[in-house]
């Protein structure tokens, strides 16, 4: 076989399987979003009707509102915490290896089971502490109240995701040459100046990728919703993926939720591109 043909044999089967199990379903999803199909029986084209209805659907709008509120807060918290932890782990600390190993544990644990465990912590452990210490807001399950349930989801998501972002920041921090700090130290720079003038500009690419990845992950939140609240109380914590799952599989809204998924895709892609553009531009200023 010629070299050229070997390369084709290496890639064509993978391309075909990818087309069948990824591209084709994606095209089908887009196709059905212009129909009124329930997932069974007959269907007709309905043009943009599904899309127009999605925009008017209070349940969908609420799920976007919740998902964004949750994703933005969780992204910021995750990045602040993981940057702080990475800075700490990169400093000359005692028990560095043990601490590093501890902080990365959540990364290897699945979100679903973690959420089940935290569900117990929110419903029993925290109220127990709250009652003992007479702290009013802690005395009842925060997942049970419409106003605070989303915070529980933020806490669990940040707990699990901080580990991975810490790894990314740490791999950025170890690439900064020590001489830079020594030179700045000779010039009389304090730690605060060193961070903003050396560390932060040097890890700016990692900051960009962390913000994009964290935001994308949180916008797709599903496991923690299922395990912590099931979308409740009422519909207060229904994420977009959860609405698509529920409506698509249990509500007979195959076409309708396909339209929702198409919008969802456009939103996620737009945000990722926007974040990369803005953060890269900020990066160039340094």
């Amino acid at each position, binding site marked *: *076989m010629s*070299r050229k043909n*070997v*390369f*084709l044999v*290496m*890639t064509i089967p*993978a391309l075909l399987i*990818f087309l069948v*199990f*990824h591209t084709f*379903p*994606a095209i089908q*999803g887009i196709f*059905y979003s212009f129909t009124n199909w329930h*997932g069974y029986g007959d269907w007709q084209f309905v043009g943009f009707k599904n899309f127009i209805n999605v925009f008017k659907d209070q349940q969908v709008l609420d799920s976007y509102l919740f998902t964004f509120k949750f994703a933005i807060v969780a992204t910021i918290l995750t990045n602040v915490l993981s940057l702080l932890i990475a*800075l*700490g782990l990169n400093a*000359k*600390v*005692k*028990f560095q*290896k043990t*601490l*590093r*190993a*501890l*902080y*990365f*544990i959540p*990364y*290897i*644990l699945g*979100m*679903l*089971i973690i959420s*089940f*465990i935290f569900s*117990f*912590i929110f419903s029993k452990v925290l109220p127990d502490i709250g009652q003992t210490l007479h702290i009013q807001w802690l005395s009842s399950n925060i997942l049970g109240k419409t106003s605070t349930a989303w915070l529980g989801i933020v806490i669990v998501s940040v707990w699990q995701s901080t580990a*991975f972002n810490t*790894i990314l920041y*740490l*791999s950025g921090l170890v690439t900064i040459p*020590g001489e830079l700090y020594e030179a700045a130290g000779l010039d009389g720079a304090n730690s605060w100046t060193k961070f903003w003038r050396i560390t932060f500009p040097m890890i700016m690419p990692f900051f960009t990728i962390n913000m994009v990845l964290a935001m994308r992950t949180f*916008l*797709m939140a*599903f*496991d923690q919703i*299922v395990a912590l609240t099931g979308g409740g109380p009422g519909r207060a914590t229904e994420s*977009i*993926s959860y609405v698509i*799952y529920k409506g*698509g599989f249990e509500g007979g809204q195959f076409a309708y939720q*396909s339209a929702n998924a*198409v919008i*969802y*895709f456009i939103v*996620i892609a737009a945000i*990722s591109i926007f974040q990369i553009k803005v953060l890269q531009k900020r990066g160039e200023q340094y």
Partner: protein
Amino acid sequence: MTNKKINWAATILLAIGALAVLIPLYLTITIAFKTPEELSSNLFNLPKHWMVSNFTNAIKTTNFFVALKNSIFVSFFSVILTVLTNSMVAYAIARNMDKKFYKLLYYFFVSAMFIPFPIIMLPLVRQTSTWHLDNLFGLILLYVVFNLALNTFIYVGYIRTIPVELEEAAIVDGASTWRVFWKIIFPLLGPMNATVAILSCLYAWNDFLLPLVLLSNPDMATLPLAQYIFQSQFSTNYTLAFASYLMALAPMLIVYMFSQKWIISGVMRGSIK
């Protein structure tokens, strides 16, 4: 650098912060060994009598060993197949980036990273059930396909740093392209193979959504899905539930304990690419 003083402030802050990781784990382990009475009387104590029966009950209730076997089966084969196929595809792409077809292929695969799973979820589930792939084999196949996006990106970046001269010498000696890949390139990919194996293993082991929507038979449930299915039976029997959670988390925790250095450096390597 070496004579720098130990930063005690950072050490103490990190140690306090580590409690946020440790306390939930401590609770999980201790609750799993308690009696329900003991749990209701005190949440934080160590168990007085370590109840092993919680675990035997959980094994029976959740069919633990079946789920464990399913999870190991799916994770093992999706890792092996992912590493073998994805590296090969990436090699062909990396060595032909000057050609239009392969360049297009590269961007086609990599851009799939931006397609959220829910957009393909509904049609995909119908398709797999029609084709009788609503089982563990379908799960493995889909993990290998979904991994291709990120891994093409990781592998191609790495392969392009391997000098072509290495291969050219072998080709002059009459080695076929297959031989060149398996005998020269694949072994050189060792560190990246490890990274890809770790990432795809964690993905397959911890994933919940795909088994949830794909698998039609509860006997095929992987460990996370089994926890979800038996949630209603656990009800308020928290000690039983926690024994079950702990058993589901334990395999990965044990692997991590023995290879955490290797896992962390593997993930870091993937992130620098």
